[in-house]
């Protein structure tokens, strides 16, 4: 188990807004700052564009963790988008936790276009946390009958 655990590389989906966080990711790249390659970035116009079903889709397709990055509150390119994101994702992530998808697998971070280093450290930290949690439960299993354990 432990061997398996060490070699476990989680699949992370990062939704990054075009104006701040994606530019932050770019800066991290051009500054040659290291962050794990298993972070798959999806660029969105605004963090507010992320429909909660996108997050569910990511989990359905096997993500072990989902992170949402947007401009700092107050700095949204569209003025107020990330304020909605903030409420929506707080609700969604706590709800997922309620269903058994631990809150360590979901996160919202505000990363500006100037914060390349912060982007890299946020990703490193998130990947580390998710790796510790191990492979995700399959959210799609919620709709399948539990298997009976051996001996039952």
């Amino acid at each position, binding site marked *: 188990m432990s061997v398996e655990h060490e070699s476990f590389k989680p699949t992370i989906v990062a939704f990054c807004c075009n104006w701040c966080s994606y530019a932050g990711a770019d800066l991290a790249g051009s500054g040659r700052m290291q962050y794990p390659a298993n972070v798959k970035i999806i660029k969105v116009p605004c963090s507010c564009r992320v429909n909660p079903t996108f997050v569910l889709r990511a989990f359905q397709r096997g993500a072990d963790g989902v992170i949402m990055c947007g401009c700092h*509150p107050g700095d949204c390119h569209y003025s107020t988008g990330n*304020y909605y994101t*903030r409420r929506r994702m*707080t609700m969604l992530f706590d709800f997922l936790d309620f269903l058994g998808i631990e809150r360590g697998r979901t996160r919202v971070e505000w990363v500006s276009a100037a914060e390349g280093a912060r982007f890299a450290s946020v990703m490193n930290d998130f990947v580390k946390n998710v790796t510790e949690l191990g492979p995700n439960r399959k959210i799609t299993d919620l*709709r399948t*009958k539990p298997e009976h354990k051996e001996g039952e």
Partner: protein
Amino acid sequence: MQKVAEIAQKRAIQLLNQGVVNRVIGWKKGEFGYDETPAVFTTAAGIEDFRYDVFSAPNLSKYLIDESKKEGKILAFLKPCDTYSFNQLIKEHRVNRDNVYIIGIECGGMADINTIRNRGAAGVTDVADNGQTVIAHTLYGDVTFDKNEVLLEKCQACKGKKHVIFDELIVVNPQDDEPKNRFAGVEAIENMTPEERFAFWREQLSKCIRCNACRNVCPACSCLQCVFDNPRSGVASKASPDTFEEQLYHIIRAFHVAGRCTDCGECSRVCPQDIPLHLLNRKFIKDMNAFYGEYKAGEDSETRPPLVNFSKDDAEPSVISDKGGDK
């Protein structure tokens, strides 16, 4: 309750005869004595069939979406919790308030036929409501229950006996208005470990047969075209074969009604598989109350629901990971 039903019946006939309304929506006897179904009456003679008793649980608000768009005014009998749904529908511009004459009708709690059966009343043919007791007439004689013991889940967690919107009231025996604690069930799950929570929900959600009853009954699920509709099937409200929708149905639906769900409890009541859907909705309600201030959907018809609103100093999403317990 008998008395309330009689008054309601008389009043409905009066209003029809006076021409204040041209239709009445209420409940009539269903196939059995314990499945009162919503019905629209158009004549004073037809109101003979009107029934209001412990099984008049169906929330009539959703029917008013269509009914209020028709010619003329309709009289609607709404129980206290149904008025919340109606208010919420006004807020969402789904009903025409001017076309509905609302009589807020007293409610002493509605009974659950399954509980009555599970408590040993087999072969129930009819049920009589005696105020504090409920008498089940069965093939093998009568069985009497204390009403409080056979209430529907939604009535055990009653939000209060106040009608939030009405044109007139029929309340014969004013009831205790103390709202009950609705969140005990949610808290019990929150206190589990993530594995246990997942196992709990897997046990529950895997029972779902996707009959769509929970969506069809829900007053918050009033979109003209629902994401779960499959227009190509040629059958209205047929489930879509898409695996994503199929697998995440309950989560998507719960999120769609978050902030708009009035906790009327209809979804759990109609679910043929006994899935405690109210726990999903109440989790959202509990969280919104905790993070964005007390909010009761449908309490009024103006305030913005929490998820289409924000404040500059809202809690950061990290509050949920800082809440303690497991990580």
